[in-house]
């Protein structure tokens, strides 16, 4: 099957990005160096073409009710112009996807989902929209998405007149317009840093990409995006989350609001006994990778690395791992097996890196 191209494909080729297939798209994996891209986002400003992600719109009288019903987190009580991160569960509590819904207004909501799950999400939400008085549309092909991330992003947005007027805190969203181009801008991202995501037409995306380059923004690929999200311990579907586990298996209890009247999966999750603890581990030398085994101090196999890699900020190996709950060691000693060697780990209670988001 031929890979799809985003509206910024030619910009990536011009910048000599290393391209790789991802969720049916030919996407930039890295431009210069993954390390430099990570540092750019943590210290200055980087940008990502994430146009492969899915954009669904819900409009109409029951829009809020529909969205609140399919997500485990609380959307009804979120303020106006707020964005909410949430898993989307089945009746049995397993995770269809994780996503962000954006309350543009009470009758217009943007749902942004993982590219790799878009079809599954579309089928699931279409199946559940029937009893609500609202319209669900897939506009993924009409939208490009650029994430501008890093401590200097606000200043750059201000300079080129993209920052909406007034208060614009973390996890808020606004519809805006510049030179007759409409766009949706939100204070969200996948790096833990201050920054925005801009949902816009393909034409505007090409214009903004060039303007950001001129402002010295560093283009960043999917490889650095993965490192950045792992450093701040954001889950990734297919790793920490999948069709077999519930949000309660992956440290997402904070997104499951049992005091809501109802949501899909509520009954199952109310009685669910989690199978896993998600732990954060680092090692001084050696790189943990997804799939590697976790052992206790007696060398019993007790879990598996869900995401692993190298943190350029900490200069060491970092990992998220599922530990089987009934094998969780009281002494909190975890070892990672890399090939035929066991490596001692440091057990972290907080994310490896604290992002600078406000």
């Amino acid at each position, binding site marked *: 099957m031929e890979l799809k191209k985003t509206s910024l494909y030619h910009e990536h080729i011009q910048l000599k990005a*290393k391209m790789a297939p991802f969720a049916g798209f030919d996407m930039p994996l*890295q431009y210069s160096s*993954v390390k430099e891209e990570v540092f750019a986002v943590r210290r200055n400003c980087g940008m990502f073409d994430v146009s492969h992600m899915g954009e669904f719109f819900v409009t109409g009288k029951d829009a809020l009710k529909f969205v609140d019903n399919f997500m485990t987190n609380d959307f009804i009580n979120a303020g106006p112009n707020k964005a909410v991160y949430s898993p989307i569960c089945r009746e049995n509590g397993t995770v269809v996807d994780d996503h962000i819904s954006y309350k543009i207004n009470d009758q217009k909501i943007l749902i942004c989902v993982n590219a790799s799950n878009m079809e599954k999400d579309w089928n699931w939400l279409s199946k559940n929209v029937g009893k609500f008085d609202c319209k669900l549309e897939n506009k993924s092909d009409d939208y490009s998405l650029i994430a501008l991330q890093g401590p200097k992003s606000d200043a750059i947005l201000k300079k080129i007149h993209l920052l909406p007027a007034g208060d614009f805190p973390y996890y808020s969203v606004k519809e805006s317009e510049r030179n007759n181009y409409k766009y949706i801008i939100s204070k969200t991202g996948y790096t833990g840093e201050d920054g925005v995501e801009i949902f816009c037409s393909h034409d505007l995306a090409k214009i903004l990409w060039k303007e950001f380059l001129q402002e010295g923004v560093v283009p960043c690929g999917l*490889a650095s995006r993965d*490192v950045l999200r792992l450093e701040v311990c954001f889950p990734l579907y297919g790793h920490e989350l999948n069709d077999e586990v519930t949000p309660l298996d992956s440290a997402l209890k904070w997104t499951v609001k049992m005091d809501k009247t109802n949501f899909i999966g509520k009954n199952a999750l109310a009685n669910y006994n989690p199978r896993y603890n998600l732990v954060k581990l680092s090692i001084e*030398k*050696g*790189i943990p*990778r997804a799939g590697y085994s976790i052992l206790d101090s007696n060398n019993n196999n007790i879990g598996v690395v869900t995401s692993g890699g*190298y943190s350029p900020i900490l200069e060491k190996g970092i990992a998220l791992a599922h530990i089987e709950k009934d094998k969780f060691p009281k002494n909190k000693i975890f070892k990672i097996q890399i090939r035929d060697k066991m490596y001692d780990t440091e057990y972290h209670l907080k994310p490896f890196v604290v992002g600078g988001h406000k």
Partner: protein
Amino acid sequence: MAHEIKPNLKYTDDHEWALLEGDVLTFGITDFAQSSLGDIVFVEFPEIGSMLEKGNPCGVIESIKSVNDLFSPASGEVLEVNENVSDSPENINHNAFGSWLVKVKITNKSEFDQLMSANEYKIHCEKIS
């Protein structure tokens, strides 16, 4: 992008360079290899004194995104490994030909003679890039 190839060295299909002095073979990875791997962050060496067989995996080089085997260009006993590279793997990115990895006392010189010349390696790289 053109990658550096040193005329005085021999090369393997797996993008390693090799230098023979007496019966001691020194090898590392090429500029082409470091460039395709990207940021190198970890190197695992064979044990000193262990016996390597030509073409078999004898260590690991990890970049941020990938885990890659290191192959021995010839059979023999490991004499020395470059601990400086172990402490600063990024040196391979900065200077691949200056960052030797392993020294091996080889048992069969013809295995070295069979390796590619700089010219042959250049053609090998052009074919795949």
